[in-house]
């Protein structure tokens, strides 16, 4: 389906796009879409949604390579090709009896912000870490944590995390490892990232090794229970 860019904000590292869809879509927190190259000659790429309301999707894009750069160069009124919703909504994967602290790193915050909006009662607190304060130019949030200003977000997490809370995490592999090390006994759900081809479970391009064998991040995830995920073994 198609969408028209109705708003764009850009900083050096990130850009935010609001895209008005031409058709109906029902997308829940944790689900993502594949955005396509205009010429459809190279792979489409996965992006989570930060908000969805009145047919408008909000994307929060980190500019890292060819495609994200291309996205960041689009202008208002440009048309995007969108495939989705894809993936399993977080809500179908988590224990609904717990309250969660949402921990995001960089654009990992995206899906969590939408989660908080739809399921406020499941959320105890939020913590969204960014390297530096330039993010404030395009994005403001009460739970922003700027590493440069405030140190290690996991120290901060210690102060807000309660005994009974679970964690839903989406961020870098490094932060993920540190988190798992720090709280070996917590209920932690992690939203995984893997290079994707189809986004639809067909191509076997995005594997994760789990206690139940090889799963696909796009179709079976992106959220997994931390206890379920294993190191890859051949």
């Amino acid at each position, binding site marked *: 389906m198609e969408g028209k860019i109705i708003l764009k904000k850009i900083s050096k590292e990130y850009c935010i796009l609001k895209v008005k869809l031409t058709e109906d879509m029902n997308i829940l927190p944790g689900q993502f879409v594949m955005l396509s190259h205009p010429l459809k000659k190279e*792979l489409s790429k996965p992006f989570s949604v930060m908000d969805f309301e009145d047919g408008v999707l909000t994307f929060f894009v980190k500019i890292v390579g*060819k495609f994200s750069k291309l996205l960041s160069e689009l202008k208002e009124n440009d048309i995007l090709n969108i495939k989705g919703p894809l993936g399993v909504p977080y809500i179908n994967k988590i224990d609904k009896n717990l309250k969660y602290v949402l921990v995001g790193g960089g654009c990992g915050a995206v899906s969590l912000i939408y989660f908080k909006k739809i399921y406020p009662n499941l959320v105890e607190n939020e913590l969204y870490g960014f390297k530096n304060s330039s993010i404030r130019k395009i994005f403001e949030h009460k739970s922003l944590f700027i590493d440069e200003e405030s140190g290690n977000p996991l120290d901060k997490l210690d102060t807000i995390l309660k005994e009974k809370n679970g964690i839903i995490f989406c961020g870098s592999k490094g932060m993920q490892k540190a988190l798992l090390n720090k709280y070996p006994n917590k209920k932690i759900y992690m939203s995984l990232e893997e290079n994707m*081809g189809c986004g*639809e479970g067909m191509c076997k391009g*995005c594997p994760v090794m789990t206690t139940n*064998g090889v799963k696909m991040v796009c179709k079976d995830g992106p959220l997994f229970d931390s206890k379920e995920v294993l190191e890859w073994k051949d």
Partner: protein
Amino acid sequence: MERLKTKVCGITFNNPVITASGPSGNGEELNKLIDISKLGGFTSKTITLNSKIGNPPPRIINVDGGMLNSIGLQNDGYIEFKKNTVPFLESLNTNIIASLGGYDSQEFEIMIKELNSTKIKAFELNLSCPNVSKGGAVISQNPNLVYEVVKNAKKISKKPIFVKFGIENVDELVENTVAAGADGVTLINCIKGMKIDINTGKTILKRKIGGLSGPAIKPIALATVYKIKNKYPDLSIIGMGGIMNFEDALEFMMAGASLVGIGTGVMIDHEIPVNIIKNLNNFLLKKNKKLDEIFSSAQEV
């Protein structure tokens, strides 16, 4: 779309557009997105004797004009395939081609015997997957073994046999394949390619080398189809490599392909095969041509 109908190796295809083995998996997901029965055929993902967990991630890297993959033939093995997947495939109202991979003639024999009784229309022997250290790749490095595998498969199979190759040593391999009596060849599989992470200085793929597919390989695939068709005018060819739109599909048919396969295209946009069929029909209509006037037109002088 009567004008897209075509017969290949005795099988009637409603149109010449099929899926390439792999990118579309076994169709369960794709059939929720498009109606697979509208395609000329569906090629299932290569199965092997024993299940394979495939290669470690990352399995996919985008490169200019295409992608590199290192899937490593992840599959549940032929027994699970027959039990869990074949019934679904048989329920589709289109031609199913089953892709088989193996280490030796014996393995292909077991799988073919087991699948002979299904409604599968043809077998495609994948002798060219670039992403397994042992497996098909080993066979294609040995032209005599290729002859033996194909000869034996032909003896046992109740269905037409296609054999799939990449570009490495393709002339000699096709020669042996034809000599062994294959019904057709599928050209081309991915081409060996690499990408290096300049920050670590290491290859991005754990197995270092992966398979290049997509528009980048289209000119190479076309030249290969042309060259083989030129040498064996009566051989049926399933052409593939970077087909993204009906123009690409036409080029392959004009070069000498009887059917065209869409691989990477389905991953980029699952509507691509259906769009190609629609646009092919419109093109023929507008030009007032039959498919037969298109096939191999570039071969003529």
